[in-house]
């Protein structure tokens, strides 16, 4: 019990150190990137006096550690500032863009893990056979071809030619802003409102981006599952399980897979974190108002507050999913309990 408390304290302290490092890095990004925040706010045609007044007002004339202290205090108060372009608060922008990415990420993770894990296990069991080779090629394509190629092809085939699926965007115009916003996720909000037409419309809009994001993640999950499974199948306890007279399915799913599942926790957690970061390319092709596009647009405009805000969010997501994977790992594997 005492040892467990100690390891927990160790994990939490490393989380705090990582988060502090994240604050330092984002602060430095805001300082190092050669955009003068005062000029960015006032515009490059503004007179010298205005800019100087603005510098004092923004605290840019203070020593750097004072600025850092103020920055940390602001962040801890949940104040990420406002966009210099749209003048919206960064927090309300993120609250608007992040649910769109989250909605995609959850479904993409579901698709990729439900397909990827069994495919990886199958490939490992049939190592070197036809199934393994086919799966290998499918994964190689998913991982190496750029997503915009698939996105464009998909739109060309399923939207333009066959007209089976809706085109870019989150909703058809008819349903836009029809359901009250609770979570920002249109599927969830329309389900809450009981508006099933809007629900299925939103779901249909998600099919293409989810499949493309899911395919990309699936390639990675499949390869990792295959590698872990191959390793497990060569372990001695598999010989024991077979010597006990168990069926191949029992040997694979009840003896090899549980040890693989432990390792897959980390892979799935980091895949989800990666999906939550948002994909600029997919979000751009499908006109998806997600966090990836928000961050990239802000970066292009030199709009530092949204950049720092989203970077912090993504950093916190990674740290928390790492922590979650670590805790789950401890729960699933009796050896590290």
């Amino acid at each position, binding site marked *: 019990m005492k040892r467990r408390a100690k390891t927990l304290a160790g994990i939490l302290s490393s989380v705090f150190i990582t988060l502090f490092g994240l604050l330092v890095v984002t602060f430095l990004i805001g300082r190092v990137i050669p955009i003068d925040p005062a000029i960015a706010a006032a515009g490059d045609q503004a007179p010298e006096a205005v800019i100087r007044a603005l510098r004092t007002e923004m605290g840019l004339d203070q020593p750097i550690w004072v600025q850092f202290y103020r920055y940390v205090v602001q962040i801890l108060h949940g104040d990420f500032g406002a966009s210099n372009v749209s003048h919206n608060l960064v927090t309300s922008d993120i609250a608007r863009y992040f649910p769109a990415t989250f909605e995609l990420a959850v479904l993409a993770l579901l698709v990729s893990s439900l397909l990827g894990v069994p495919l990886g296990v199958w490939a490992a069991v049939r190592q070197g056979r036809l199934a393994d080779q086919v799966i290998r090629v499918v994964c190689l394509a998913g991982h190496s071809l750029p997503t915009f190629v698939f996105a464009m092809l998909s739109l060309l085939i399923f939207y333009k030619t066959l007209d089976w699926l809706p085109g870019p965007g989150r909703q058809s115009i008819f349903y836009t802003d029809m359901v009250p916003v609770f979570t920002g996720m249109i599927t969830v909000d329309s389900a809450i409102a009981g508006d099933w037409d809007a629900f299925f419309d939103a779901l249909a809009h998600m099919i293409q981006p989810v499949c493309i994001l899911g395919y990309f993640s699936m390639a990675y999950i499949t390869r990792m599952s295959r590698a872990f499974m191959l390793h497990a199948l060569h*372990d*001695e*306890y598999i*010989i*024991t*399980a*077979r*010597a*006990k*007279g*168990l*069926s*191949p399915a*029992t040997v694979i799913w009840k*003896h090899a897979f*549980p*040890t693989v599942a*432990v390792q897959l926790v980390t892979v799935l957690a980091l895949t989800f974190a990666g999906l939550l970061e948002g994909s600029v390319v997919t979000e751009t092709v499908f006109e998806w108002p997600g966090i990836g596009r928000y961050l990239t647009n802000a970066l292009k405009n030199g709009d530092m507050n949204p950049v720092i805000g989203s970077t912090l969010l993504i950093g916190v997501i990674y740290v928390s999913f790492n922590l979650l994977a670590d805790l789950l790992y401890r729960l*699933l*594997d*009796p*050896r590290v309990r």
Partner: protein
Amino acid sequence: MLVDINNLHISFRSRTGVFEAVRGISMNIGAEKFGIVGESGSGKSVTARAIMKLLPNNAVIEADRLAFDGIDILAADEKTMRGIRGKRAGFILQDPKYSLNPVKTIGVQIAEAWYTHKGGTRREAMQAAITLLDQVKIRDPKAVAALYPHEVSGGMGQRAMIAMMMAPDPELLIADEPTSALDATVQAEILRLMEDLVSSRGMGLILISHDLPLVSHFCDRVAIMYAGKVMEEIRAAELNRARHPYTRGLLECIPSLLQPKEQLAVLNRDPAWMNP
């Protein structure tokens, strides 16, 4: 006759060619204690795994006859083999640290062997597992059943392994170097336990080891293997009268406390042994 082996050849295909691990051996083993002794790579473990058909896919098994209780193993499909594995022939591996599943409790692993072959509920199987742990002389079997393999000592792990393989009441127990990974003091205990169980149940035992005196102490007959061939097969009690120079060489290079030698003999290996 439990195991009938006639002119068994086992080779492994690899990218660089074919390696022949077993080159034409013959053995007949009944409900007795049979030892197979040899150096690393002499083909003894591979022979044992061939009887259970547990070799990797790149292994090629050829024999005039390879049979378990009259069942042709070479021709047997996976389903027939599952009727033999565990149910009629148990298989004990070298190191319980690796041969027990790390994420399942000892009790669950023994119970699984029991209900796979005997049926019944999980509760009955777990009860049987605890009884079996008691039979392999584990104190407080109920508590041990709830432990994971990494939480017990090597000796206890190997006892659990024996309990697991005894669960379906097999007729034959194959033990592949069951004590090599254990402390010297525990080795004799484990072997004595196996001998007791095998004798009291009237089972056959194939004991594989590289320790010639140890094996001869526990077995009725011993086959001495070298480079995939059987050099000599003799009654364990007559080991001192072994004629083959390899067996003699093995015996001579063992240090003795009672009769210390100035210099230990060096084991000679004669290529002519391969073509008798």
